[in-house]
């Protein structure tokens, strides 16, 4: 039981707990906040996995921007409580079974099969995961995907604006 392992298990527990909290929470705002916590935990995990830049990106974009957006919408729509009877009675049991099956399969893959993922990873080289290294890689080998991604973001922006436009104004 190395310290690394303990740290990892702690973080893992927190992540899982927050995830479950998100799922179980009746209040949508609480779900959002739980998810934020989850993202931050995962960001810490990234840090520990030598992905510093990505961790920061996660916190900034994912937890900071995306979840805030979620929060905005939740506030806007005022949907704290979900009403009505459950019409799909079999959904929960089926989901449970499915989840367990999936876990079983992945567990089988990870721990019982002849995969080589049981071993410890080796030591990292130099600035593995640093912004400089990632940036160099991005702008040298993955230039086109970056441009495409920027285009994608543009499209998303336009789409969001178009979708949320008020049609009453157009009728004039």
């Amino acid at each position, binding site marked *: 039981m190395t310290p690394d392992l303990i740290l990892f298990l702690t973080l893992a527990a927190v992540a899982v707990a927050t995830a479950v909290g998100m799922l179980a929470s009746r209040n949508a705002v609480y779900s959002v906040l739980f998810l934020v916590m989850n993202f931050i935990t995962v960001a810490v995990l990234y840090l520990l996995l030598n992905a510093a830049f990505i961790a920061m990106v996660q916190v900034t974009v994912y937890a900071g921007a995306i979840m805030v957006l979620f929060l905005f919408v939740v506030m806007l729509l005022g949907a704290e409580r979900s009403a009505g009877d459950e019409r*799909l009675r079999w*959904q929960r049991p*089926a*989901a449970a079974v*499915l989840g367990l099956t*999936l876990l079983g*399969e992945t567990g089988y*893959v990870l721990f019982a099969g002849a995969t080589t993922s049981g071993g410890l990873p080796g030591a990292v080289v130099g600035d593995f995961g640093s912004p400089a290294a990632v940036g160099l890689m991005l702008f040298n080998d993955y230039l086109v995907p970056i441009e495409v991604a920027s285009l994608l973001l543009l499209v998303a922006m336009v789409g969001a604006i178009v979708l949320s436009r008020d049609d009453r104004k157009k009728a004039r």
Partner: protein
Amino acid sequence: MPLREVAAGVGLFGSAAWIIAFPVLGLVLNLVLGRRLGERFTGVVASGAVALSFGIAVLQFLALRAAPEGARVMVADWIAIGSLSVPWALKIDTLSVTMMLMVTGVSTLIHIYAAGYMHDDVRFQGDPGRYTRFFVYFNLFVACMMILVTGDSFLTLFVGWEGVGLCSYLLIGFWYEKGAGGIGNALAGKKAFITNRIGDFGFLIAMFLAFWAFGSLRFDEVFQRAEEAGPAAVGVITGITLFLLLGAAGKSAQLPLVVWLPDAMAGPTPVSALIHAATMVTAGVYMIVRNHVLFDLAPFSSNAVTWVGGLTALFAATVAVGQYDIKKVLAYSTISQLGFMVAAAGLGAYVAAMFHLLTHAFFKALLFLSAGSVIQGVEKGHQHAGEHAAGPDRHEAPFDPNDMRTMGGLRRRMPVTFWVYLIGALALAGIPPLAGFFSKDEILAEASRIHPAVYGLLTAAAFLTAFYMGRQIWLVFFGSPRSAPSAHAEESRLVVTGPLVALAGLAILGGALNLPGLPALASWLGRTLGEAEAAAFNPLVALVSILLALVAIAAAWLLYGRRPLAEGEADPLRRLLGPVFVGIQNKWWIDEFYDWLVVRRYVRLAAFLAEVIDGRFWHDWFHDTLMARSFRMGTRWLAEAFDLRVIDGAANGLADLIKAAAGRLHRLQTGFVRNYALALFLGAVGLLAYFLLQR
């Protein structure tokens, strides 16, 4: 004798094909335009066509004068299969030209006569529109007769042979809806055709045998090869000639195929004159003379021919004595005279046979046409008598204009007809110097020399001939009229009596063709038939025949002339001959005999085949029960059990299945996103499990 081959259209010989073409043109013209352009047009066209054919015959005669061996005129290719080659060729030699001249000459006269006769006849029978049809058939007959006479081979002759048989049928049954029981004429035509057919069967077999034995159908080739084959082929040649005899017996009404000619009198009189006296019936004799080479090589057949001719001559002569129908007497007389010709041909006296054929054509045509004039005169008298009389006379029994018992005293009312008829009768009886004496005498002389038994038969027939002609003259023209129609009888018009006078002239002068010291015909025919020994004139035979003829006429006068028959009185011969007379009147029951022997059994067989075999077995059982019903069962099974249940069931079932499946499956479409997501993840998990299990 190798004949010159001439192409049609070249020179005098080359015009020979027109002798067939002119009547064909005439009949086509009449067929198309005749009805529209009227009776006069029809008569002129028909007579003109035959007259033109006569002109062509004269041209051929002139051509032969220059080239007596004759020619062979090629008209067209016809059959060329393997070794069988039958082109359409005309054989122009003295024999065929003799026939051509006689047929076209007599035909022209008869056509002119018929133009007048049919005008009245179609009005008596009540169908003026049928005038044109008569002349179409008449011209067709002449065309076919020309084909027969000019035939270069058995097959081309046979084409004409069949054609004249057809025309005979068409013309006998010309008034097909009249006659005994409304169908008598048609039945007579049918009888003629069927009896002829039996003869044709003989001819066909002879043809096949000739081809089989000698490899050709051309007369010249067959004769040449037959002569070369010599005694070895006697059997085959005898067979061929016997079957040819059967054919001739059918066409010329000899025993045993004699029964059709008396019934053929149902046709209009010009038909009887032309076809059944002068031309068609003589085709049998012509055919035998044409095949003289074969008959000379088969003495058995020649003997058979002689006997057939002789027996027929006597048989027919006896029957003629007891007939009271004016045309029936002449019909039996024709049969008898044909027997003379056939007997002569059998004896080898071909020239005598042809001579008698020619003279007989003249006076027999004359007699028939005059009889027609008599009949029409009496018909007109009947109409007049009907107009004058009133009341009781109108309810009389159906009037038969042919019945001699109702005639009498017609020489005063129809003088021209009387004189020409008398000339014809005397010619037929064999009174010199009329034509019939010379030709008949020649036959008798040959018979006495070669075959005394047949000479006896022929002499007896000649005696009876003179007797029944005398009887006829006295019954018809002398005494007083035995009925109102005869009392009012009228002479015929010039268009009718003109040809009669012309024929009478020929009957008088015809003997000049072959006088004992000037055998013109013999030398003429000799070019084709080979130089036969000229028949020596036998004065004894001649004297005997003249005496017998005079005795017969005297006997007739005794019975019919001295005390003319009164109205309703029975024939005096009945008293004299008793049962023999009954036999004579009933033509020795030959028709009844054939009916019992052949016809009844055949009809029964036909009825059996039709009703039982065809009707009940084939149609009712096989078709209806077996095939139709089983087919219907099959189709019903297919339709109901199979189509409705299986196929429709399958189709409908498929649809129902899909509907049911769709009904179940559409419940998957719940509309809930979460269900769809569940399905999605279920699939993903399933796939993963599959891949894991794969390993």
